[in-house]
């Protein structure tokens, strides 16, 4: 009788261990990737869902040029250089005033689509 119980228990434990391992393997890849990212960018915020993040997504590479801001900044600066765009030209932050040079040129009308060729 007691022998039977001993035989049954090991099987149950193995089953439980297997389930734990599977769950860990399921969680592990994403967490490992998170650790990799945080190691590369330690200043990365906790939650990516913040407004800055969403604003970047919404912008989709569009650049904002305000002629009023630009001219006022020019007037203030007078002879000094205007702050130019940082390495990431796609992100317009509060203290950077886009200049006409930062903006992509307006595209002219296109040829017929190659799908119709």
């Amino acid at each position: 009788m007691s022998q039977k119980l001993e035989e049954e228990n090991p099987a149950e434990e193995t089953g439980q261990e297997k389930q734990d391992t599977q769950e860990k393997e399921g969680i592990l890849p994403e967490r490992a990737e998170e650790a990799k990212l945080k190691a590369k960018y330690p200043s990365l915020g906790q939650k990516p869902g913040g407004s800055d993040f969403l604003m970047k997504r919404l912008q989709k590479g569009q650049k904002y040029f305000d002629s009023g801001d630009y001219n006022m900044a020019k007037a203030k600066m007078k002879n000094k250089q205007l702050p130019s765009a940082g390495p990431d030209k796609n992100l317009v932050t509060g203290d950077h005033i886009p200049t006409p040079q930062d903006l992509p040129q307006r595209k002219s009308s296109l040829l017929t689509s190659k799908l119709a060729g």
Partner: protein
Amino acid sequence: MAGAGGGGCPAGNDFQWCFSQVKGAVDEDVAEADIISTVEFNYSGDLLATGDKGGRVVIFQREQENKIRPHSRGEYNVYSTFQSHEPEFDYLKSLEIEEKINKIRWLPQQNAAHFLLSTNDDLRINLWHLEITDRSFNIVDIKPANMEELTEVITAAEFHPHQCNVLVYSSSKGTIRLCDMRSSALCDRHSKFFEEPEDPSSRSFFSEIISSISDVKFSHSGRYMMTRDYLSVKVWDLNMESRPVETHQVHEYLRSKLCSLYENDCIFDKFECCWNGSDSAVMTGSYNNFFRMFDRSTRRDVTLEASRESSKPRASLKPRKVCAGGKRKKDEISVDSLDFNKKILHTAWHPVDNVIAVAATNNLYIFQDKAN
């Protein structure tokens, strides 16, 4: 909606998907303007429209019986093309307006002329009367008074196929709201709220990003809706808000590549999904010019590839397999060999027949079932 020959199993051995046509140039350097941004069949499937980032629309028409060229029957050839949107600059807001075609929707044919609508999306959903062009009804507005409080954006929206007062919209947080325009003029309060419960212990930095819904599509029956997030396709029963009835893994092997995919921005790629005519199967795209089909009844799935190499007339497509880890078998491709620049974001399924249109960057592939 009964499909002609569409009721069978599209994945696995019962169907033979074959190459039919490919449109577009074989350029090494793809111009931004040539990137296809939307593909849509009309209600009969006789017309197929594409839109691109350059603001152009090309419409293809299916060839009917042709005695001179008997093999051309069923082929899609150019019917019309035009420049739909031009790049603009909004001087008032100092904003550059993109000319990219985001969506094409065919209107039910009312007379001999065919009409179509090409549109854009926002923090708001507006309803337009086709004959009144200077104003619209605002039905959903999630723009906060203070933009710094923004936590969620609308990612996709669709009207119910039969109940014109019902619409759904999805969010960047993986939720779907169903609104009934008859219950109130402003649908900020939803009638139904769909969200799959998340296991808090499995939450990571990437959780919210990969849960963002990139596409939502009602089934033809109107009973179900399908959502696409970064790694999966989910089918929801409109009568059950607590969780999806089906989840299909598109490319689960990418879960262990999320760090790189975040760095190269691929994690923000917006994949679309579509139903077949009888709602028995769903399709969505992936990377390396792969696309996936899931049979809902048999639960079988298949990975196929849109490539010039397998573009011989009526050549059968060979199923592809990605090796997630361990020993790579002969015909498998390893995850690290996948080309993440070759994305299939847009696919369309003929409303009746087993004909599919797959946009691979600047090329349009058309595949048909051998039985067609």
